[in-house]
């Protein structure tokens, strides 16, 4: 018996997640799956592209071969994922892009702009330092869209505040342990010359935080990350982490499933739903803790 045979009238949605080992995307993907489960008559298949454009392309082709009713794509890259989007559009299957745009547009986009995230975080640092001081930046994996855009957003802020100095910047590949080691080395190299650390994600921010705390330097240094993962929120609550930037994973997840269903039923659906980033500090924390 074909257990996978589709029941009459059931809507099948294919969802390719960029990388389930990254906490933010994992949260987003979980929201997509959970929300789809609450919808009767909907079956959602999730696959993990593990940050590999080519792998994600293959997954998209597999969805097309399955003749799914709609595809939700969380693209790996801005440029490189474009052919996958084009292939879907050529097949006529409705496409929802979530959390990352590509050169070609889908039928609907749900998300936020990584450029803004970098800008918001850096603005918060600038405000905290009153426009004066040294900053260290922890990059994600070099060349990925999120890294490039978060860096660009931050750089815009540096341009605005001549008093802010980028003391050093280096990749820690989104990884907490690597960020920790890197921060330890920076503490040796630049002790006293930096007042803030901006990490491209919360994982790395947590690593930087642990290294600073272990060296007894946290009180002198502002640390801000992006994503508002659970541990970061707790750390903000405990007053250890200064701030993080909230990206509404659940909102994006739900929005993309809704959009996919509308498109699958050939109903009108907004071209773009922007879910803005929000800075999370101790003051507005209660909004974000469930």
């Amino acid at each position, binding site marked *: 018996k*074909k257990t*996978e045979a589709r029941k009459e009238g059931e809507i099948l949605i294919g969802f390719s997640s960029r990388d389930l080992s990254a906490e933010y995307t994992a949260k987003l993907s979980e929201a997509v799956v959970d929300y789809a489960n609450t919808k009767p008559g909907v079956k959602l298949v999730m696959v993990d592209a593990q940050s590999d*454009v*080519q792998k994600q392309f293959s997954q998209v082709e*597999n969805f097309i071969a399955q003749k799914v009713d709609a595809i939700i794509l969380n693209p790996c890259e801005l440029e490189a994922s474009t*052919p996958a989007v084009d292939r879907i559009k050529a097949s006529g299957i409705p496409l929802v892009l979530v959390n990352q745009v590509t050169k070609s547009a889908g039928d609907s986009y749900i998300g936020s702009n990584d450029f803004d995230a970098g800008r918001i975080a850096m603005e918060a640092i600038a405000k905290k330092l009153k426009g004066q001081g040294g900053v260290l930046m922890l990059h994600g994996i070099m060349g*990925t869209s999120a890294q490039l855009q978060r860096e660009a957003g931050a750089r815009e802020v540096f341009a605005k505040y001549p008093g802010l100095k980028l003391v050093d910047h280096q990749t820690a590949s989104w990884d907490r342990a690597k960020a920790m080691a890197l921060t330890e080395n920076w503490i040796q190299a630049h002790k006293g010359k930096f007042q803030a650390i901006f990490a491209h994600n919360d994982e790395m921010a947590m690593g930087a935080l642990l290294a600073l705390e272990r060296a007894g330097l946290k009180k002198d240094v502002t640390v801000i990350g992006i994503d508002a993962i659970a541990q970061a929120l707790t750390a903000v609550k405990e007053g250890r982490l200064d701030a993080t930037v909230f990206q509404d994973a659940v909102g994006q997840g739900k929005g993309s499933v809704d959009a996919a269903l509308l498109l699958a039923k050939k109903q009108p659906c907004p071209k773009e739903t922007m879910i803005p980033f929000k800075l999370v500090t101790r003051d507005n924390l209660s909004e974000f803790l469930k």
Partner: protein
Amino acid sequence: MPALDRNLLHRFGLLLVILLVGLALSLWTDTFLSLANFTNVARQVSINGILAVGVTFVLLTAGVDLSLGSVVALSGVACATFAHPGEYSVFVPIAVGLLTGTACGLVNGVLVTRGGVAPFIVTLGMMTIARGLALIFSGGRPVANMSNELTALAGDIWGIPIPVLCFAGVAFVAWYFLRNFRLGRHIYAVGGNENAARAAGVPVERVKLLAYGLCGLLTGLAGVVLAARITTGQPNAGQAYELDAIAAVVIGGTSLAGGVGTITGTLLGVLLIGVINNGLDLMGVSSYYQAVIKGVIIVGAVWLDRRQARS
């Protein structure tokens, strides 16, 4: 030669596993058994296939190449840099990509043969060096805006994807070369017993250099094909591709100790990995479980294969 023809039969266990997996997938899903999906699988395995054929040469000489993934990225970036529309003929970016790959392969080969450094270390070094160079040349940003002539390389001819044709062509030439050419047999001899080969007058150093060079050339080709497929030269592309490629080759019966292995085996290994990836996606298995199942099938397939080979 019996030593080679035996191979398909020899790899009967592997073929059996592939057929079993295929059968299971045909029963479980109604999408696996279709021409469109077979084209899909073929297209999806072609890059790993080209890499696997390339690294077969190196593994046969008892070497290893860990730099495949990074060199794919570097060649892709190099190719894309010369592929902006209206600048050069389409052959220039292709040649640049192939040459970049070949150059990396030859550097590996020279360090292994002249430098006497273990292939593991040489190619691990090349892995980080090529990645760094790809980032430097591209400024860390994807190199986009590629001409349509080049991206057409990822399209179809007579309904068959060009990457698949590339893979098939590469595999056939490699098979013929290893089987019928003196240099091909010398690759086996060097891997089987380097001292014996040297004592018999085989130019061991040249043979190894050739193997690394060929591997580099095919890695460059994979880089060009990937760039065409994703329409960008992506400096962080190809992460861990070497593992999939080497896994395919070893699954196909090539010994990491050198001297034993065939292209047909490599093809079966590539196919097994491709079918598993495709099938698990089609079945909608959750990704966490996909990882576990994939690992179990690969180890199980090789175990079965070796068990029947022994009996």
